[in-house]
């Protein structure tokens, strides 16, 4: 089989062979292989439930691909609510003529990423649409997880809490920007696309008092900080010089006039913890692979409700606003 054809989404023999030979092999587990109309699941605790669609262009980029993103994105959303990712659905919308090899690579990459959290794909769907109806491949994943740490909420940041980022910011946005056709620049920027669950699990196991967690996807760090300030009616005071930004990312920002703080991340979270636990949280994060560049960047105050204030090292300050306009469409 070289290319995906309309018949692969027709529900007949070709569909069955695609499911058996590709999806079942890669995602193998009892629930999926039972091949019922719906997956039957048992969850003991409160559950978290989320969904996301992935349309990134290009589908293969430095540091990841649409498959890795489709798993990490949904797993991270669960993790951010203190939920252990358990079960995912995966729905593929594929353009007629899409190379089977590419689909295989994407599916393998999804299977590999699932191992990092232990989550399973338990149900799925495949549609093939005529050429031109989608751009190569779109993937939707939904996921549920059991909440093992209650009370994490963007609406409940406390005064004096400490703000930590789990790594350097802006790499996914910069990597995708660099790969875009016609830009003609090369550089050593890899997307940060990754599963954050190991870092979150370590924080929970360490009994860290977490007020809020959010992965800094579209809108970047700027968006998360502003959302928190507004949702919790607090002020976030941030030290600009403490925000980790990798050099090539800063370089691409210099060239194109972007701000790294506005760029999307796909494996970097902002964590808000109680002041007494800040150092411990930082140590724990830094002991994990995905959190090894974690950094304290600021704290929660009541100086100006609903606002984020950025302090420079040369003694000035300004409000940090939400990014505006079409920075980059189809980033995830």
């Amino acid at each position: 089989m070289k290319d995906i054809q309309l018949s692969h989404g027709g529900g007949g023999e070709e569909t069955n062979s695609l499911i058996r030979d590709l999806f079942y092999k890669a995602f193998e587990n009892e629930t999926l292989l039972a091949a019922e109309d719906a997956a039957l699941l048992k969850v003991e605790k409160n559950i978290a439930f989320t969904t996301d669609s992935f349309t990134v262009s290009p589908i293969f980029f430095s540091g990841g691909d649409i498959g890795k993103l489709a798993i990490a994105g949904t797993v991270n959303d669960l993790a951010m609510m203190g939920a252990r990712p358990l079960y995912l659905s995966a729905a593929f919308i594929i353009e007629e003529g899409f190379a089977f090899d590419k689909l295989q690579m994407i599916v393998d990459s999804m299977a590999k990423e699932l191992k990092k959290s232990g989550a399973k794909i338990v149900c799925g769907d495949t549609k093939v649409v005529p050429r031109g109806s989608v751009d190569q491949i779109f993937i939707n994943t939904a996921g549920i997880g059991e909440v093992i740490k209650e009370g994490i909420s963007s609406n409940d940041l406390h005064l004096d809490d400490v703000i930590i980022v789990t790594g350097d910011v802006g790499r996914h946005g910069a990597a995708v920007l660099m790969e875009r056709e016609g830009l003609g620049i090369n550089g050593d920027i890899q997307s940060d696309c990754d599963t954050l669950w190991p870092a979150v699990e370590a924080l929970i196991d360490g009994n860290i008092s977490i007020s809020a967690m959010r992965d800094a996807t579209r809108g970047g760090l700027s968006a998360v900080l502003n959302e928190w300030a507004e949702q919790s009616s607090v002020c976030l005071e941030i030290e600009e010089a403490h925000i980790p930004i990798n050099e090539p990312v800063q370089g691409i920002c210099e060239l194109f006039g972007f701000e790294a703080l506005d760029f999307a991340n796909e494996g970097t979270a902002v964590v808000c913890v109680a002041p007494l636990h800040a150092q411990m949280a930082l140590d724990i994060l830094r002991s994990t692979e995905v959190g090894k560049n974690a950094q304290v960047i600021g704290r929660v105050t009541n100086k100006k409700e609903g606002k984020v204030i950025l302090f420079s090292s040369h003694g000035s300050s300004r409000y940090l606003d939400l990014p505006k306009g079409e920075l980059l469409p189809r980033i995830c």
Partner: protein
Amino acid sequence: MDNLQLKDLYEGFRDPSVIKALAKQINIEAKKLEKPLYIMEVCGGHTHTIMKYGLKQLLPTNIDFIHGPGCPVCIMPKERIDHAIALSEQKDVILLTLGDMIRVPGSKSSLAEHRAKGYDIRPLYSPMDALGIAQDNPDKKVIFFAIGFETTTPMTAALIDRTVKSKINNLFFHINHVLVPPAVDAIMADKRAKINAFIGPSHVSVISGAKIYLRIPEAYKAPVVVSGFEPVDVMQSILMILRQRNENRSEMEIEYSRSVTLEGNTKAQELINTYLHPRGHFRWRGIGDIPDSALELRPEYAKYDAEKIYADVLPQEPIDDHKLCICGEILKGLAKPHDCSVFGTACTPNKPLGSCMVSSEGACNAYYRFAEV
């Protein structure tokens, strides 16, 4: 130069200790000022630096900035944006332009809204990408809506040069390149203007040379310092202006000595002169008609000139901004963004009423985005 990193080019010019040291000297020097200093930073890039780095907070109260007209997107009158929209509606046309132009509202719509309706409108990061698009689409007419000051004009000229020499016959140009010195003259012609010093943009002078400002100190009894765009550059330039004032001098000085010469890039100037020449007049949004303030294709290249080819469908009537918008007063330095009754309410970066709110280099946008605490 093997190991030169990009950060080597800016790091020293953002050094907090240097910025603080310059602030200290500025504060000492400013005590000797007899009259307040109203510095116009002509270019929107400087406005962006001043706001992003909060430089105003480091200065004494007798130094104020007046944000100039040097934002190519901001000064584009609505009728020219309507041109771009009308061009995109023509049969088999792909319209190309740079960055923020996509979002600027014309009289009825913006290019972004038009693109959503299905018209083929593409933002470019580099004008040279237009060549590839024209070659990949031989059955389409590709129109480059060119904008910018002296800084970006050479890229357009190089693109025209390649188009002509490679005999590409489906790439056309709508030229909106504007010039700094005539705009400065137009602003100073208003007797209400308070400006008594200028920070000139270094990138313009890298191309055109610092010579383009030589007559300004004499004409307006005001120091001109050609400055780089990093915070240390701007602070250093302010200090240079202060010293001129306190020593009773009005001269043109170059702060950005690392790239600016008196003559500029003569190769680029020749390339521009080969294909472009000043047009009789150009209407600047907020300021009005300024003679010889913009460029157009020379008549011998008329077959590449979208403005001539599509003359029948391009609206010619001037269209003014919303009547509540005071961008004109802001561009002349007679008002600040906060003086505008719709700033941040009816007019925001997401829904700009006037041009200064659109581009990240516009004064209103910079005030909104990097508001001081």
